[in-house]
C-alpha cells in the first residue's frame, strides 16, 4: 500500500468501518510511514491543539470572514446571563465566549459590580437640617391642620376633584336641563296640545262631526251619571232624615256642595278634552 492509497481509505481506519484485511493493511502502512501516521492521528483528533494565541488568531480570522465578531451577540445575552434568566445553551455559549474574550469578560465583571453598587446609590443623605426644613415647609402649607380628620376637608377635596373634571360642565348642563323640565314642564308636549286648533282649521267639517258626536256621547253619559247621583243623594237624605237636626243640616249642605261640584265637573269634562 502506498501513501496515496492510504489517504484514499483513511476514513475506514478512522471510523472503523473497513474490512479486516483492509484495516490491517492500512495499519501496517501507518506503522511504517510517519507522515501517514501523523495524518491518521490528526483525523482521529489526537494531534496536539494549537497554541492559544494561534487559536485566537484563527477564530478571529474565521469570524471576520463569516458572521463578524460574536461580542455583540454575547452582550445582548450578558444581562440575562448575569440575572440567571438565560437558557442552558446560551449560558454555556456565553461562558465559553467570556473565557476567550477579555473585552466581554471585563464588561461582565463591571456589570456584576454595577449590580452591587447601583442599589447603594438609591439613598443619599441630604444633610442634618433637611428634615427640619421639610417639616417647616409642610407646616407652612397647612398651618392649622386638625389633629383628627373631619368630614368637611374630605368633602371639600371631593368637591374640588369633581369640579376639576373636564366633563363637569356637561354634567351640570344636563342636570340643569332636567331640573327645568321637571319644574316647568315639557314644552314639546305643550306644543302638540296647541297644535290641535290648526288641525281643526285644516279639516274643519270632519272634525266638527267627530267633536259633535263625542260631545253628544259625553253629554248623555254625564246626564246619566248626574241622574244616578241625584237618586243616590235622595236615598241618602231619606235615610239620614232621622238623625239629629244639626247633623243632618250639615250633611245636607255638604252633600249639596258635592253634587254641585260633580255637576260642574261633568259639564266641564267634555270641553276639557278639546282644550
Amino acid at each position: 500500500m502506498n501513501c496515496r492509497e492510504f489517504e484514499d481509505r483513511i476514513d475506514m481506519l478512522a471510523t472503523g468501518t473497513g474490512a479486516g484485511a483492509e484495516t490491517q493493511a492500512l495499519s501496517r502502512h501507518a506503522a511504517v510511514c510517519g507522515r501517514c501516521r501523523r495524518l491518521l492521528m490528526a483525523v482521529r483528533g489526537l494531534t496536539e491543539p494549537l497554541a492559544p494565541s494561534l487559536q485566537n488568531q484563527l477564530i478571529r480570522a474565521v469570524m471576520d470572514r463569516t458572521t463578524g465578531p460574536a461580542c455583540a451577540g454575547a452582550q445582548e445575552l450578558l444581562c440575562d446571563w448575569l440575572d440567571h434568566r438565560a437558557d442552558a445553551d446560551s449560558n454555556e455559549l456565553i461562558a465559553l465566549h467570556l473565557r476567550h474574550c477579555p473585552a466581554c469578560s471585563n464588561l461582565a465583571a463591571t456589570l456584576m459590580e454595577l449590580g452591587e453598587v447601583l442599589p447603594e446609590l438609591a439613598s443619599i443623605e441630604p444633610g442634618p437640617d433637611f428634615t427640619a426644613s421639610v417639616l417647616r415647609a409642610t407646616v407652612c402649607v397647612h398651618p392649622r391642620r386638625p389633629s383628627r380628620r373631619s368630614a368637611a376637608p374630605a368633602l371639600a377635596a371631593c368637591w374640588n376633584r369633581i369640579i376639576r373634571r373636564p366633563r363637569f360642565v356637561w354634567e351640570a348642563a344636563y342636570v340643569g336641563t332636567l331640573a327645568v323640565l321637571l319644574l316647568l314642564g315639557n314644552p314639546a308636549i305643550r306644543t302638540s296640545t296647541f297644535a290641535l286648533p290648526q288641525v281643526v282649521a285644516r279639516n274643519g267639517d270632519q272634525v266638527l262631526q267627530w267633536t259633535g258626536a263625542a260631545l253628544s256621547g259625553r253629554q248623555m253619559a254625564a246626564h246619566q251619571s248626574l241622574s244616578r247621583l241625584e237618586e243616590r243623594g235622595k236615598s241618602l237624605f231619606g235615610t239620614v232624615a232621622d238623625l239629629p237636626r244639626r247633623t243632618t243640616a250639615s250633611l245636607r249642605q255638604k252633600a249639596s256642595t258635592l253634587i254641585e261640584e260633580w255637576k260642574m265637573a261633568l259639564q266641564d269634562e267634555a270641553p276639557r278634552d278639546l282644550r
Partner: protein
Amino acid sequence: MDGCRFKMNLTAILTRCKEGDALAWEALVRQFQGRIYGMALHYTGNAEDARDLAQEVFIRIYQNLETCDPDIFLPWIIRIARNACIDHLRRRKARSQGQGVDPEELANLPGRGSTPEQDWQASARKRLIHRALEELTGLNREIIILKEIQGLQLEEIATLLGVPLGTVKSRSNRARIELAQKVLALTHE
C-alpha cells in the same frame, strides 16, 4: 439611614400622617428623604437643586397624602419625584444653565470599605459610576435610575415613563451595557 427606618407598618404610618400626626410625618420624611434626595441628585447632578427639589417633592407628597395607596407608596413617591425632577430640568433647560455633577456632593457618597483607604476607594468608585451615569442618554439614564437604583419593576417603569413594556425590557439591558462600557472607559482614562 438605617437608624432612621421605622419598624411600624407603612400603612399605619400613612394613616397617622393622613390624620395630621406630625410625629408620623417626620418619621416618614426621615425614612424616605435619602431616597428622594438621591433620586433628585441623580437627575439634577446639583446638590442645592436636589435639596430644593426633594423638599418640593415632600410638600407634594404631604398635599396628596389622602390619595396615596400604601401598597404602591414607593412607586407613587418616585413618580412624584420624577415629575418634579423633569419639571426642574425643563425649567433649567429654558434658563440654559449648564448641567454637571456636583463634585462636592459626590465626594460625600458613602463608601463601604472596612478601612478608611477602602472606604475612600469605594467612594471614588461610586463617584466614577455617577459620572458614567451622567453620560448616558436620557431614557437609558432614567431606566437605570428607576430600575437598578430605585428598584422599580419593569411594569411600573413602563407606566411611569409611558412606554411599552417591551421597550423598557430591551432598553433595560442595553442601558446596563452602555453604563458598564462608560464605566470601563472612565476607568481607563
